[in-house]
């Protein structure tokens, strides 16, 4: 197996990372790095950490080149990559207080660990309370998806980073579980990975039941909300499972109130491919606005409208309203 970290690998050009993945020889994992410098989206680090953890569990040797780009040492060390791979950092790094706003790689295997992680995470990103809500929201939904549906032997790996010049926070989550197709197939007829991704991103569809409204514990709306939180702040969303991936692209700038949210993810400007190397499990990456976006309640209001329109009920006025006191 081979994983290569390119010099630049963000959601817009993540194909640079995907193209060089090799899973043919499961007896060894080779991790290589661009020799000059590496700057990548947290989703790539989460993916590398997840596959490395799986190798460690299965006693598969991990091979890392002795020579790494010196400029990339501090970045990898800070993000916890060497710890996750299980190798000693090739160079001691001096940390400077407050030098960065990032959440290093973390493995999460239980709901309690998730709750602790969410409490720890926001101070690390130095996010203002009004900007922290969407971050907490998507992290909770993405990790709970893994814990409840993936049966991942390595749990979920997550990391995040604030990019000041882009005014965005990037989040990546990866697992090595059953993948979306297997999960959706429990209750739905799914022909391939691309179809499974489409279903998983629609509102109200969960792998746990065919029933609209879900079960008492699952509604099937987490990924729909998450995808649209990225979209509403005019940012990218990426999901990869099996041999398929979906990348929601940015739309031409338009006023927030005119932004249309679709239940079918493929109606959005996007890249959808079903010829990628087969990733056993699921990878999700997204960017959200760090500051100055719409209020989260406004954004949730838009998503709520899109959700309701999808079910196309025409007799909503007959519906009983919750009583807020």
């Amino acid at each position: 197996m081979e994983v290569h970290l390119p010099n630049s690998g963000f959601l817009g050009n993540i194909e640079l990372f995907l193209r060089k993945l090799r899973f043919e020889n499961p007896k060894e994992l080779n991790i290589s790095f661009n020799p000059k410098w590496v700057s990548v989206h947290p989703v790539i680090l989460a993916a590398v950490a997840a596959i490395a953890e799986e190798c460690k569990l299965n006693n598969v040797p991990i091979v890392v080149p002795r020579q790494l780009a010196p400029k990339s040492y501090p970045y990898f060390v800070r993000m916890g990559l060497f710890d996750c791979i299980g190798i000693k950092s090739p160079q001691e790094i001096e940390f400077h207080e407050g030098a960065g706003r990032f959440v290093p790689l973390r493995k999460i295997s239980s709901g309690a660990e998730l709750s602790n992680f969410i409490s720890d995470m926001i101070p690390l990103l130095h996010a203002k309370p009004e900007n922290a809500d969407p971050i907490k929201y998507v992290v909770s939904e993405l990790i709970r998806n893994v814990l409840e549906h993936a049966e991942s032997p390595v749990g979920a790996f997550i990391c995040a980073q604030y990019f000041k010049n882009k005014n965005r926070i990037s989040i990546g989550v990866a697992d090595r579980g059953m993948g979306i197709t297997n999960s959706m197939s429990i209750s739905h007829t799914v022909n391939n990975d691309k179809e499974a991704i489409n279903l998983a991103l629609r509102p109200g569809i969960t792998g746990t039941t065919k029933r609209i409204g879900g079960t008492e514990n699952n509604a099937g709306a987490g990924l729909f909300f998450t995808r649209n939180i990225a979209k509403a702040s005019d940012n990218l969303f990426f999901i990869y499972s099996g041999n398929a991936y979906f990348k929601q692209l940015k739309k031409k700038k338009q006023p927030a109130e005119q932004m249309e949210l679709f239940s079918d993810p493929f109606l959005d400007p996007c890249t959808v491919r079903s010829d990628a190397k087969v990733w056993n499990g699921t990878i999700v990456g997204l960017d959200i606005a760090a500051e100055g976006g719409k209020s989260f309640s406004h954004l949730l209001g838009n998503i709520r409208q899109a959700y309701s329109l999808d079910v196309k009920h025409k007799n909503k006025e007959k519906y009983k309203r919750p009583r807020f006191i």
Partner: protein
Amino acid sequence: MKEIILQQKVGSFAENKDVAREIREQFIKPALAAGVDVVLDFEGVSMATQSFIHALISDPIRIYGANVLDQIAFKNCNESIKTLVTVVCDYMQDSFTNE
């Protein structure tokens, strides 16, 4: 009336579905079964996930129908939480019309 102070159980961010399930099974459903009104007090809760709200109230709505919303009141909700509660109440009622 059974009043449940959520902040004591979930903190300021209501996302733990295991806790939602406990509240639902230990407090909400028994109260409703006994004909007692339930007040869910979100004072001090600044944010929730839709999954949390779903785990909290979808099952009672499915069991007792939409009229159970006459027995449940949502107190001290901010705008985000109101939106999430409304989403869940809406799609649970959609599920009746589509069944």
